[in-house]
């Protein structure tokens, strides 16, 4: 069982659908857990942000919610790019997939990937997000 990270203050959403960016952002803010919600429409933009801020850990998220099906760079590819980040940084991040998929290959891929803490089903419900946070972060 990996150690729980301290209570998070920043979350990052990566989703190509403008609808879902808005919906997930509102749902996340409803939980009142995070001070900052970073929202990106594509994997490359999110990766750029992370690499631009490697020296500023206070600007980096602790939890990243990642859509699977995105043009250009899908969620799995995003994760394989993240694997090349410096290890201390990687260890301070948790990744969850957020998708409407029920494709068996996607599910198998998600289960096989050690970086993914959970494959969550859209629509995201605040209780599901809270449960995830409680499981992987010290929320008290």
């Amino acid at each position, binding site marked *: 069982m990996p150690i729980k990270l301290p209570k998070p203050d920043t979350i990052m959403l990566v989703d190509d*659908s403008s*609808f*879902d960016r808005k*919906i*997930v952002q*509102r*749902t996340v803010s*409803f939980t009142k857990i995070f001070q900052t919600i970073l929202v990106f429409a594509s994997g490359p933009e999110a990766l750029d942000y992370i690499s631009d801020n490697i020296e500023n850990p206070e600007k980096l998220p602790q939890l990243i919610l990642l859509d699977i*099906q995105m043009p250009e760079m899908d969620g799995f590819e995003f994760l394989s790019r993240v694997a090349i980040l410096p290890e201390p940084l990687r260890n301070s991040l948790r990744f969850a997939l957020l998708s*409407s*998929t*029920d*494709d*068996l290959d996607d599910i198998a891929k998600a289960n096989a990937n050690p970086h993914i803490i959970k494959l969550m*089903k*859209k*629509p*995201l*419900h*605040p*209780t*599901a997000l809270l449960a995830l946070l409680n499981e992987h972060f010290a929320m008290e």
Partner: protein
Amino acid sequence: MAPIKILYVDDEEHNLKSFKASFRRQYEIHTAISAFEARSVLTNTNVHIIISDQRMPQMTGVEFFKSIKDSYPDPIRVLLTGYTDIDALAEAINEGHIYRYITKPWNELEVNNCIINAYGAYNSKVELKEKVSELQKTNDELNRFIYSISHELRAPLASALGLVHLVKLEELIDTQSRLGEYWELLEGCCNKLDDNISKTLQYYKNHRYEAANENIDLKTLTDELIALHKQANNVTDQVAFETVIKQPVEFWGDSFRLEIVLGNLISNAIKFQNPAIENKKISITVKVTTLYAQIMVADNGMGILEENLPKIFTQFFRGNHEKGFGLGLFIVKEALDKMEGTINAKSDLDKGSIFTIRIPNKKPI
């Protein structure tokens, strides 16, 4: 029409000559004096039929056919033998790489008939190959199509449901108002559509996916499915779940199909509650032995009319309610058939239903 191309292999020069003389007007004849030479012909020409003498010095006809079986699978092979070579013949036939044999000395008519038949066999073989690869392509396309359509239908629906939830979370609507009532109905429609899409896909996948054999932890699976269907049906505390799971041994089976079966039974138990009952309850009892897993899903819901019980596993059958799509239990039955499992339903109207399934434990030895 392109000519039929034949390769004739024989170690005696005059046989090659007389074969060529007999057939060169009808067919395109290539000859080779040894297996070695025959192979160099094969690298340069796509022949349809290979006729080879059995008795040759370095390599016999059967040995030659065996040696080219994998690199040149398409040409039809015919062996020429004397009466004394029966052993070789048996071997060649048993190993399945010759189409026919002709005894020596051959006569022109027999050989010609053989060529015509062999060419027919060649064409069927090639045609079959083309059909199989065509089918494979269609299959792949269909799978890709299903994948993308499933995403294209699902994603906007999930967004719509997300919005529906958000309005409720942010308490933008008075649930007691007319709008609140319509909002509930809207959410119901979205859920139903989502359910119909997933049932349709389950039906499709159950038909097409190969059966898998995995080690399954029934407690994890049951808990996950309960959580999933509670969320999908907006159940919080209105229904009590009771699970008793006895799994002293490993259970091996097809987790995808087991999920279909158990998921549908749980979702039905949630959907067909009896509104008149105070203590709504669903109990799931699992017992695993080395031979099978027995899973019982019982509810105190609305139950099923006795006369309807025999029909519930048929496609598009729906009871006297509007909630179903008529596919759920049909898919359950189909998935169980693939797992060699059985299902049994007992029900009393207004009292509840009990579904008992039994699936063989396929633990590898």
